[in-house]
């Protein structure tokens, strides 16, 4: 067909990050913000986001949420046979364009008439987009902390997903790594912490404080604002280290390596590879 889009490996990597790392953050928003939790109270349904993809089981990549009386369970990378509500994209490219904010190729919405499900989902998705696609840090402290949490959860999951998909640069990093954990933290806010453990090609993204031992390297920010300044590329990391806003607890060489992995996730999550 003349207009057929050729799905690239970059589209697959980007889709992997959105399905496995970004979409699950919907649950984080619902659990962190009571006003969003209230929108789902008493409701039980299955919501799914999917994109048609050759070679995947059922011909699509998907992540679905099982919501039972407002409590979310995330099923990443798994298609539900009969979701109550589904956003179905025709291909991975359109899916990536939509979620990276590069364009608005709207999905086909199955179950559109179920407004009781659709409206709270749409509002939560819009809240997530408003936070993650913002170019400036929010004003409210609670919003800042939520956004830091979203970034901190997205980054290790994104790195781990790319590793599991065989991204060459990240696979090379994990394959040559002994058992090490890399963590992100904000002073006195352990609930925001996240980490990734890597070992000989394996990786696992986790949330909260890494408990097996002290992480091999931790990016410690002194507050949420300074964390966002770095995560949103608003400040120079070296300058912040000098000022004491950021303390890299670990060998500096590995801090630089971790920075490169974070930039790789950003490359896909921000759709930087998508032309135009």
């Amino acid at each position, binding site marked *: 067909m003349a207009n057929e889009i050729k799905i690239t490996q970059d589209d697959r990597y980007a889709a992997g990050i959105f399905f*496995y*790392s970004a979409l*699950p953050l919907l*649950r984080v928003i619902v659990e962190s913000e009571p006003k969003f939790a209230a929108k789902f109270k008493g409701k039980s349904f299955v919501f799914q986001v999917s994109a048609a993809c050759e070679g995947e089981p059922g011909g699509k990549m998907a992540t679905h949420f099982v919501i039972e009386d407002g409590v979310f369970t*995330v099923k*990443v990378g798994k298609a539900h046979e009969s979701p109550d509500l589904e956003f179905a994209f025709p291909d991975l490219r359109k899916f990536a364009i939509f979620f990276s904010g590069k364009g608005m190729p709207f999905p086909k919405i199955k179950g559109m008439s179920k407004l009781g499900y659709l409206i709270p989902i749409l509002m939560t998705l819009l809240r997530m987009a408003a936070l993650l696609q913002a170019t400036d840090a929010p004003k409210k402290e609670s919003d800042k902390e939520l956004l830091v949490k979203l970034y901190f959860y997205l980054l*290790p*999951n994104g790195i*781990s*997903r790319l590793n599991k998909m065989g991204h060459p640069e990240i696979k090379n990093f994990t394959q040559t790594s*002994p*058992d*090490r954990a890399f963590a992100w933290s904000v002073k006195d806010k352990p609930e925001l912490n996240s980490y990734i453990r890597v*070992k000989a090609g*394996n*990786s*696992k*993204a*986790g*949330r909260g404080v890494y*408990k*097996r*031992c*002290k992480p*091999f390297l931790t990016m410690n920010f002194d507050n949420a604002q300074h964390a966002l300044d770095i995560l949103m590329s608003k400040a120079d990391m070296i300058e912040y280290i000098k000022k004491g806003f950021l*303390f890299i*607890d670990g*060998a500096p*060489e*590995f801090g630089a390596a971790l920075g490169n992995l974070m930039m790789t996730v950003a490359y896909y999550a921000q759709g930087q590879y998508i032309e135009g």
Partner: protein
Amino acid sequence: MAGGLSFTAVESTKLATAEIYGKTLSALGDENPNVVALTADLAGSTKIGDFKEKHPDRFFNVGIAEQNMYGVAAGMAKCGLIPFASSFSVFASLRALDQVHTDICYQNVNVKIIGTHGGTSFGQAGSTHHAIEDFAVVRGLVNMTLICPADGIETALAVRAAANTPGPFYIRINRGFDNTVYSTSDYGFQVGKAVTMNEGNDVTIIACGSCVYQSMQAAKILENDYNISARVLNMHTIKPLDKEAVLKAVDETRRVVTAEDHTIIGGLGSAVAETIVESGKGCAFKRLGIPDKFSAIGLHEDLLAMHEIDAAGIVKNVLELMKADFEAEAVKKGLDITKLNFGTAEDWTDEV
């Protein structure tokens, strides 16, 4: 602490260990006019610039001539001074060995040798700059006290202890930043006395230098993942060795693993092994360190991992030792060894 200088954990995370040595030496120079500093054209690398600025009349650069430096230091000590002669560990222990042996140790003079860039901590510089035999060499020298501190705070304490104790000292420190082991300097540092970093009764890990931090992390993993209770001893003084602590560990934990950034021949592991064997007591035992070969070149952290003296490597070796010991015991008792489980299935599912 006598003399007043105390390094906090915050300072110890901002300063490389050699910088802490430099500041401690500078403070000692303020307190005691007999303290002098010598360098073989490595003042910048060994971080004794502070002393040079504050006490230029007591600072001596002998040029690129380590042998000469230790001979000069011995003469100064004979005149009642307290020389701190700093160089890279590999040069202090090997290139200048004859002078250290004959001019310093044989005379039993009050020279303090500070070997920086110890072990594989100058990893990228290559094997010629790795000091992986210095414990073996220096431990054999009569009259010498040999210390390998675990972090910056312990380095400051060791340097002060050396200044206050007559006789030759060799203190080996790392090139760059060390992971912080101590948050305070009042934990009771004593030359020749091991520090118990973690109590345990299944196995004892005896470590020095950067391996102390790694062993503490290994103990956490062993506890969390395998329910193994590991004692960790910081054996900062390799000579004279705290034999009492070693034998107590043998009695109470029955299994001993040593970890050092040094060849496994002649260093901490050998000193511990000699103590155990001479006691007539038996225990399961393993030395961790650099096998009998020159190290590869690379970042210190990667070399620690390569030689299995990082946390993960220590865990792996402790598990192997425990397994071998349990299997031997099980066979003796006719038990089914297949029921011994020392591995936990690792879950690599991402949390969402």
